[in-house]
């Protein structure tokens, strides 16, 4: 790896990292704004225009609060909890393809932190590690409500990861690749996976709601039963990190959904736009502008799903714990397996017939 290559990779990673943080920051603002709008209020609108400085004010407040560690808590694990939550949340953004490539002086620079041929496995591994942040924090608090919340979160995440993985297998069978860049490239134009995998998409999005501990699956922080759940004992910026990690997870899973099912940076008519841009602006600038348009489309899709998370939050009440487990184990997993069988049959028998018919 040459120095230039290293620097380019570092710059991409830092850009992706910063972008993720900014989007997560403004998700907190958007969450409150959406909550307000859905409840016929106007939401925060005092700090800056439309309340845009609200995240800064919140962060400032969080930073200046007392950084409290309970006397009987395990001090190191108590600090490790939110750090792990932040770490695992941020790691996943490295493999997401935000756009195709930038062409700088004849070199192609992919708009992706790491082009890994096991991208989706990496995302899964990192997301599975996310349980540790919650579990460690809940256990270290030395508080039964925190521990109960943490156990709930852990068992919920583990249960829904199974269905999530199974729903993904159908996608992998179609793409026959684990690389996220490859999966996106195959959905060129309007050839999005959502049209082939509607059932898989519903299972996947339900599971990602559960993975992010969002309503209707926010049992780990169910106030009526568990005070504050796993972050009952947390205050100051450590609590801020937990909440922030949730928003980062939300953005990451929205990005993954748009990559896997909604074609990432692909949009209908992209070839025509590309040709026109290359014709009028030259191969280098035209290519870069086309890439930027694709990236904007990608962010549009990802942010729509962030909005969808919030929209659902103010629509559906919380599930009961047994309902959650029933849905996960008795409904979603069999449905996901059924989906795999259907997809397998279609790939084996239907696809050759259709390809032959089209030719």
């Amino acid at each position, binding site marked *: 790896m040459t120095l230039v290559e290293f620097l380019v990779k570092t710059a991409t990673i830092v850009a992706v990292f910063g972008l993720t943080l900014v989007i997560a920051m403004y998700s907190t603002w958007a969450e409150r704004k*959406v909550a*307000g*709008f*859905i*409840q*016929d*209020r*106007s939401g925060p*609108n005092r700090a800056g225009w439309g309340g845009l400085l609200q995240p800064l004010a919140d962060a400032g407040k969080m930073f200046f609060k007392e950084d409290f560690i309970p006397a009987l808590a395990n001090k190191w694990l108590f600090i490790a909890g939110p750090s792990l939550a932040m770490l695992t949340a941020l790691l996943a953004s490295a493999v997401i393809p935000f756009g195709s490539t930038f062409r700088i002086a004849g070199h192609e620079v992919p708009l992706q932190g790491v082009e890994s041929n096991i991208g989706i496995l990496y995302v899964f591994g990192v997301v599975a590690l996310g349980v540790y942040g919650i579990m460690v924090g809940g256990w270290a608090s030395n508080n039964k409500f925190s521990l109960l919340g943490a156990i709930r979160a852990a068992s919920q995440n583990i249960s829904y990861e199974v269905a999530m993985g199974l729903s993904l297998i159908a996608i992998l069978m179609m793409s026959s690749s684990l690389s996220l860049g490859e999966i996106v490239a195959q959905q060129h134009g309007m050839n999005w996976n959502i049209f082939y995998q509607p059932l898989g998409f*519903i299972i996947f999005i339900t599971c990602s709601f559960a993975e992010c501990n969002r309503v209707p699956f926010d049992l780990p922080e169910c106030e009526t039963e568990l005070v504050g759940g796993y972050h009952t004992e947390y205050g100051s910026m450590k609590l801020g990190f937990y909440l922030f990690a949730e928003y980062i997870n939300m953005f990451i899973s929205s990005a993954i959904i748009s990559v896997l099912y909604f074609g990432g940076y692909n949009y209908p008519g992209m070839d025509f736009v590309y040709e026109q841009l290359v014709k009028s602006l030259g191969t280098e600038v035209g290519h870069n502008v086309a890439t930027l348009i694709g990236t904007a489309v990608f962010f549009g899709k990802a942010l729509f799903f962030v909005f969808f998370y919030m*929209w*659902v939050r*103010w*629509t*559906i009440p919380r599930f009961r714990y047994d309902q959650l487990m029933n849905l996960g184990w008795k409904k979603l997993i069999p449905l996901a397996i059924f989906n795999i069988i259907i997809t397998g049959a279609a790939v084996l028998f239907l696809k050759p017939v259709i390809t032959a018919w089209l030719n």
Partner: protein
Amino acid sequence: MQLTNRSKQVSNKQMTLAERAYLPAIATGLAITIKHFFAKKVTIQYPEVKRYLGPVFRGRHILKRDADGRERCTACGLCAVACPAEAISMVAAERVKGEENLYREEKYAAVYEVNMLRCIFCGLCEEACPKQAVYLRHDEFVPVFTERDQVIWGKDLLVEDMNNRYTREAWTKEEARALDAKRASGEVTNVVPRAIP
């Protein structure tokens, strides 16, 4: 015995497949919330926009002058007697020759003070006043004060300014009710009962 017709018959019938799948119900719910997302917001941006509180709202006090600009108060002390919070105090003085254009009665309040920390804005002073001199304004609150010497309001703050006279469209509860009836029957009044800037 049936008290209302809002009661719903409870049944334990099996849910249909569509109901058990949750998704149609969730879609209905999402449609309802997105409708509210685009609906007009009910919030009134308070310090910039103030809601019209009605003609008989009891805000800060005012000592009225009559049509010729003379103070109406005769320092009889009935308001101070009526005040349950003992917020009002006054010092009476006799009008001398040449002050007829300042005070309507032969006796007037040289000092008239309201303690705004004691006042409970009950309006009993208004009702007790035989000269229609003291009123609680319907359009202004007592502003926030942060210093002790801002608590007791003297005549400098209370007496009406002739260049900016205080009026309202109903002075008594009976008039306010008549006004409400007028509005209900669709007659146009000079004040629209909603948020005013």
